[in-house]
């Protein structure tokens, strides 16, 4: 884990409210990185006091000169980042947290990756890992959810992978592409069709989606790992601001820290 000044190398608008930002990183950054980990990033230059706190973002993709984040504009901090000039120095902290349990996913295992909205940032890091480690694409089932088709990111890239065996399913709220409805409809259908060969589910997205997904997985007795979000002040376990309830802990002290014990949790341990 590093605390480092990072240069904005590139910023690309993907939709009116999402963008990709490429940032420089120290030499050994990539070596330490586990898919699903995040960075805390300042959203203003050094010595700016407002906004004060760093913001958590999933590390989406490693690049030869650094890494990329995929960001959706939802408030002041992300809006400032969206207009950051190339060459600006940000203050970064990471990689932080525990990523997806990549070492327990066997190559013969069916893998279901479920991404809702900007949760795709975290899922891409996992997909990249699987490609790099030569997981057979025919075992990977990528399920994407978005409000509308124009918010589906990286769709061409995923479609190219379907030619190599990846299964891709899409749900949009308005039905402008793929299934009209929720990603969990797709998940539940696919789990029923394949009841004898349960996949391992790995997911990142809005909390209501994760909650529904976790319940489905528990019912189907599928192993399931969910990447949660929480308001964070520190990102490294010291402020106790980001806690969520965990079933494996005793009732008098039911909390785990999303930043330090997560952000990826075994769904079976969460109070869904």
């Amino acid at each position, binding site marked *: *884990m590093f*605390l480092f000044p990072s240069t904005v190398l590139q910023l690309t608008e993907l939709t009116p409210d999402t963008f990709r930002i490429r940032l420089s990183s120290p030499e050994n950054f990539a070596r330490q990185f586990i898919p699903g980990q995040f960075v805390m990033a*300042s959203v203003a230059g050094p*010595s700016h*006091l*407002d*906004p*004060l*706190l*760093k913001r958590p973002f999933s590390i989406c993709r490693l690049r030869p000169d650094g890494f990329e984040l995929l960001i959706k504009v939802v408030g002041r901090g992300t809006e400032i980042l969206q207009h950051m000039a190339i060459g600006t120095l940000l*203050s970064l*902290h990471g990689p932080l947290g525990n990523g997806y349990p990549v070492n327990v996913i066997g190559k013969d295992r069916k893998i279901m990756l479920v991404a809702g909205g900007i949760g795709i940032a975290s899922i891409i890091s996992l997909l990249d890992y699987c490609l790099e480690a030569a997981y057979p694409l025919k075992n990977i089932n990528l399920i994407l959810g978005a409000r509308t088709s124009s918010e589906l990111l990286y769709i061409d890239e995923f479609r190219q992978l379907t030619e190599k065996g990846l299964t891709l399913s899409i749900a949009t709220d308005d039905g402008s592409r793929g299934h009209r409805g929720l990603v969990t409809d797709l998940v539940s259908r696919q789990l029923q069709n394949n009841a004898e060969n349960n996949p391992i589910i790995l997911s990142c997205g809005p909390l209501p989606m994760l909650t529904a997904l976790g319940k489905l997985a528990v019912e189907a007795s599928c192993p399931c790992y969910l990447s949660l979000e*929480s*308001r*964070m*002040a*520190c*990102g*490294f*376990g*010291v*402020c*106790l*601001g*980001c*806690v*969520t309830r965990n079933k494996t802990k005793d009732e*008098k*002290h*039911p*909390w785990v820290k999303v930043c330090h014990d997560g952000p990826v949790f075994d769904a079976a341990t969460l109070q869904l």
Partner: protein
Amino acid sequence: MIDLSVLLGSGLRLKNPVMTASGTFGYGREYEPYLELNKLGAVVTKGLSLLPKPGNEPPRIVETPCGMLNAIGLENIGVEAFLSDELPALKAAQATVVVNFFGETIDEYEELAEILDQETGIDALEINISCPNVKAGGLQFGTDPRMAASLVTAVRRRTSLPLITKLSPNVTDIISIAMAVEAAGSDCVSLINTLTGMAVDLQSRKPVLANITGGLSGPAIKPIALRMVHQVARNVNIPVIGIGGISSTNDALEFLLVGATAIQVGTCNFVNPAITAEIAAGIETFLHESSISHISDFIGSLQLA
């Protein structure tokens, strides 16, 4: 050689005036990847209670302009786990250790002081008096001079360790509280704790924090903290530790200038985990450049016309 050391009462000499504020530095060990704990004036632990405390429901934090609100609810591992699992690492790091603690009754404070007094490796105690006294209908110990004084008197009897009383700013007259705890035997006062605040969400029409209110900290509170430190330092004869919104060497120097003997950095540790070490180095550079060889010559040197 510049002498950065400061004396907090008779028993406690810090190698420099930079301390960490309770609740923002974990139990110390979490910061070892970023700095050397023994380069700091002192490490102040998360506030401890007799038994572990679960704290409040989330959401517990929200950012506000130049600061944040927190309602952690004093979650901590309890004194027993601290002594067995955390203190050894602090000792191994040769840190100067100040243990912050609190209770819900005077008895609880006394029992804690006694337990902590018997340990080696603890250099001082900081009493958090911004806690509700359950026997006084939940009124905070720190909001009434008499109640604050009787608490300090009781704790004083149970320990010979240097005692720092941490004051709440949510009072009409902080000077009277400071004077009362001085008279009751406190070796130092530290101020300020967080200011009670609130944030609401217009869309849901709900409070943002599950606890409804929370404590405001960060650069937003610095002018208030500076004013209170200035006032208290002029009215007590014991050392004052300045806390509130310190984010840079200059901020720290400002508190020393108005009369703080040492300072604590809180919220800004979250933003830059190495900031306390950077401020300690920054103070040394400042004194060197100003040709001041003893920090004590700078402390309280504010020029009032």
